[in-house]
Structure formats: structure tokens, C-alpha cells
């Protein structure tokens, strides 16, 4: 197992949670289902990723000290997670009370979700000692990658899912950005003489998901789940390789 497995979990699950809200900020959320499911799922992902982040620390008890240094990568991620989590919690409370989501709250959660993705990218961009991380490609990896990860989850919470042409467009764009991010990392790692197989595998799986998004006009359940698996597995393989230092 990779030594930074906690970071892998943090960016994968936290990124999925943040990416989902970032996408839903520009879409119309379903109001016919149980509205609380989305914030509950997002919070579960965020809590698991948060505990994973504690696992990254040798002395977890001192984690709160990080909040005194918001300009550092971990501090930025900490504040990003807290603020994003706060708005997801507000969304949960509103959904529980009014039985439907509030769009302004969704947009605010989406904005802070995007900020969390930027924080993740920044945390690796500033790592000068690891050449394959300390460059602008890390922003693409975590911002575009997070948005791509948000697609399969967001599909369950948008009116008509992939049957919604606006969502299909947004989803296809987000997954395309995910493919671009993996190809950029492929170039960065390859340029340093490191293995790029995982990025290519991830890019191919996401490219298949991209095609399925475009053809899933009838929002077939099996295609929706297939897209879910392809995007999550594809991004997980690529991220796992990213952390193999």
C-alpha cells in the first residue's frame, strides 16, 4: 500500500463530495426525492476523508494547531473542508426542515467545494521537494479531477439525471476536463521518467465514461452505474499512482 494512503482517501472522497456540489451549483437539483440524501452522502464522504487526513499525521492530537496557519497547504485544506462541510450541514438542515433544497445554499456549498478542490491542488503545488507534485499540473489534477468525480454522484440528484440535456453537457465537460488533467499528469510524470501507465488507464476509463454520458439520453440505470464505476475506478487508479512516491 502507498505510504500516503490517507491522502489518497482524503482527496478521492473529499474531492467527490466537493465536486458534486460544485457541479450542482450550476444545475437544478431534484426535488421529488428525499432531499436530505445528498447532504448526508456528501457529509459521510467528507467525514471519512477528514478522518483519513488525521491518519496522515504522526501526531493527530495536534491537528487543531493547523488552523493557525491557513496559508499552508494543509491549513488551506483544513479551512476548505470546514467551510464546505458547514454549508453542506446547512443544506442538510434546510432539506430536513423544508423537504426540498435551497438553491442559494447549494451554490454557496458549490463555491466552497470548488475552493476545497483548489486547496487540494495548492497543497501539492507547493511541494517543491517532489518534482512530480510541485507544479501547476497538480491544480488540474485536483480541480478538474474533483469535478469529474462529482459527475457520477451528481447524476442521482439532478432532475432526470443524464436525461437532462444541461446536465449531460456539464457532465461531459467535467469528465473531459478530468481526462485532460490525467493526460497532463501523464506528460509530467513521463517527462521525469516515472511510470505513466495508471494515468493512461485512468484517462481511457474516463474517456469511455465521457462517451456513455453523451449516449445515456434515456438515463438508463445500468449506464448510470457503469459511468459511476468507470469514473471512480479510473480516477482512483490515477490518484493511487500519483501518490506512489
Amino acid at each position, binding site marked *: 500500500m502507498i505510504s500516503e494512503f490517507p491522502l489518497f482517501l482524503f482527496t478521492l472522497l473529499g474531492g467527490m463530495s466537493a465536486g458534486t456540489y460544485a457541479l450542482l451549483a450550476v444545475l437544478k437539483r431534484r426535488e421529488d426525492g428525499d432531499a436530505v440524501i445528498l447532504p448526508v452522502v456528501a457529509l459521510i464522504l467528507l467525514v471519512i476523508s477528514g478522518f483519513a487526513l488525521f491518519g496522515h499525521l504522526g501526531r493527530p492530537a495536534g491537528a487543531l494547531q493547523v488552523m493557525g496557519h491557513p496559508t499552508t497547504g494543509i491549513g488551506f485544506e483544513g479551512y476548505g473542508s470546514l467551510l464546505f462541510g458547514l454549508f453542506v450541514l446547512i443544506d442538510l438542515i434546510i432539506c430536513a426542515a423544508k423537504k426540498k433544497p435551497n438553491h442559494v445554499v447549494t451554490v454557496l456549498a458549490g463555491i466552497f467545494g470548488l475552493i476545497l478542490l483548489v486547496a487540494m491542488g495548492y497543497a501539492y503545488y507547493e511541494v*517543491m521537494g517532489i518534482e512530480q507534485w510541485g507544479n501547476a499540473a497538480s491544480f488540474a489534477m485536483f480541480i478538474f479531477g474533483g469535478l469529474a468525480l462529482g459527475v457520477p454522484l451528481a447524476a442521482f440528484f439532478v432532475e432526470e439525471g443524464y436525461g437532462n440535456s444541461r446536465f449531460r453537457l456539464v457532465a461531459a465537460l467535467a469528465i473531459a476536463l478530468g481526462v485532460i488533467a490525467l493526460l497532463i499528469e501523464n506528460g509530467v510524470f513521463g517527462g521525469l521518467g516515472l511510470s505513466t501507465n495508471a494515468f493512461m488507464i485512468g484517462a481511457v476509463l474516463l474517456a469511455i465514461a465521457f462517451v456513455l454520458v453523451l449516449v445515456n439520453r434515456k438515463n438508463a440505470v445500468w449506464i448510470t452505474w457503469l459511468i459511476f464505476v468507470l469514473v471512480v475506478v479510473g480516477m482512483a487508479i490515477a490518484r493511487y499512482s500519483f501518490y506512489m512516491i
Partner: protein
Amino acid sequence: MPVGFAINTVNCFGCKTCQLACENTHLQNPGVFMRRVREVNATEGPGTVFVSMACNHCDDPQCLKVCPVGAYTKLTDGTVVQDHEKCIGCKSCIMACPFHAPTFDESEGATYKCDGCLDRRSAGLLPQCVISCPGANIQFGNLDEVAQAYDGAESIHDTVATGPNLYVKHNENLDLDDFKHIDGRETVDVGSVDGWL
């Protein structure tokens, strides 16, 4: 003028006395080294070159920049020191340092980093690695002084963006850019070190 180390790689034969002396002086846990002797192997050309390296007390220390708990400070003499009690073991400093100079103690869950034996220097003594090297191949002090320690020693200050304060004596064909490749690995392969030996 800030402080820093000078090393003589021409005469170093890799005995690692400096590494062990540093460990025995400062740390209790075996295998946790603030100074490490890296083996630099040529993929073209002969042999292995030994590079003894600890913290280079950079002008722009990345450990200080990225530490999320503010455990690092740079003293007026240029020494970069860590407040070990503040360390939460996130390893950000190790990953950010181009040379991976800080070292992680698994048993303690925290990171240690060379401070140039600040306690010994306060008592008027030289750092332990300096006095322990049987070949006198390590020097520490103000850079203008250590720069003169070995004939022909060159600074690697401008080869890495952090501005490391380290002078190196090497054979004439050594490319200082090879120091960019000296990171956390114990053994480093570089393209060609013809003339190192």
C-alpha cells in the same frame, strides 16, 4: 553572512561516521538520521560518490514555508531550527525540502531536522558531524569562512531555488546540477559523473 556547511566529496569514502555521530548525539531511535550519506552512482562512468548532507539552512527554506503549525524559524545567523514540540508529524517539511533533509521518526510520529548542533555551538563547540569526520571532510560556520575550507569548493546556492547554503569540493567535471537529484533516496543515480573520482 549566514552559516552553512562545506563538504569535501573528493576525500569522502563513505564511512558514515558523521551520520552515526549525529544520530548518537541527538536522537534515541535507531535509523532516524538528520545527516545522511547518500551514494551517488554514475549510470555512465565509474564508481560511487558519497555525499554527506544534512539541512543546508536555505535562504528560502521550504520547510518553514509549508509547515502548517509554524514549527520552523530562521535565526538571524541563518540557522533554520525546528520547535520539535510543535511538530504534528504531517511530513510536509520532508516533502517540500528539495533534499528531503528533515527525517521522520516513525516511533514518535514526528520529524527531526538538523540545526547545526545549536546547543553545542552555544557552548563554543563545533557540530558533532564536523568533529567526528575522520577525514575532516565537513566544515560548518559562516559561509565566507567555510567557502575557504577546501580549495576550489563551490556553492550549490544557485542550483536549487531554495538557495541552499552548502559549499562542495568536487572534481572539475562534476556538474553542480547533479545536486538537484539528491533527495530522500539513499542511493541516487545520475547521468554521468565522469571525473568525480
